[in-house]
């Protein structure tokens, strides 16, 4: 009996670990986005910034697709790109309360939000990007 219980506990622990170990956020942006150093001979068009709540299920295993989740940065269009991009991930009060309080920490496994924001500038430039050779 004890062995069976221990086995179940071990399986439950392993399963929850395996499921939860994926709480990673990929910060993806439109192609040719520049972080930091702005390209030479570029013209700044407009500053952009946005913040969104990213929602995750099962401690991050799955991202909710239609519950407050949206793509942060949209493609600025042909001849334009994002530059000077900075990203901020915040575990703010709301995220904390949602993750922790419902169900005395079990809420974290049901709904785990984070607030992710970025800011940068849309630039225009004539030069084409030449793919690096290997």
């Amino acid at each position, binding site marked *: 009996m004890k062995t069976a219980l221990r086995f179940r506990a071990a399986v439950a622990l392993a399963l929850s*670990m395996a499921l*939860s*170990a*994926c*709480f*990673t*956020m*990929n*910060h*993806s*942006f439109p*192609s*040719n*986005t*520049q*972080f*930091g*150093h702005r*390209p*030479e001979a570029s013209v700044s068009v407009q500053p952009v910034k946005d913040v969104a709540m990213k929602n995750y299920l099962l*401690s*991050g295993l799955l991202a909710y697709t239609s519950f407050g989740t949206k793509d942060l940065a949209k493609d600025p269009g042909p001849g334009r790109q994002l530059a000077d991009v*900075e*990203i*901020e*991930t*915040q*575990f*703010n*009060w709301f995220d*904390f*309360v949602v993750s*922790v*309080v419902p169900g*005395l*920490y079990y809420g*974290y496994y049901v709904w785990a939000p984070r607030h992710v924001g970025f800011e940068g500038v849309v630039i225009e*430039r004539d*030069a*084409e*990007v*030449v*793919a*690096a*050779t*290997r």
Partner: protein
Amino acid sequence: MRRRFRLVALALLLPTFGSGCYTVHHAYHGDKILTNGPGLERPTKVVEHFEAHDRQFFWIHGGIPTGEALNGLELAAQQAGEHPGVVNLKLKEGQGFTDLLITHVPCLLGIVCGTWSTWVEGDVVEYETPVAGR
């Protein structure tokens, strides 16, 4: 009974006040070029592919971060070394298996402490023709 209830309430309230909006800010203001695109405006050659990881330890649900702040873009720029920049940059953050183990087991579901990680991956590039002044 009342004392136990108070202890539970305190245990819940402490991290609530201490959660203090754990924030990760990815920013880079140096002279390296960091892009998620396949190349730069001039022909480049890939010098090396890299994958790097950094981890931050914090107390009380992120309320008291310790050590150097996480910054994936700074970490990517460090990988460039003497070279002008990084292309095909991928940036992500969250909790990997080790973070999860630390946060959930010895840190008691993050109430006492925890860790958060950032991962970067990309290609360090060098200009195929040297740029004047560099």
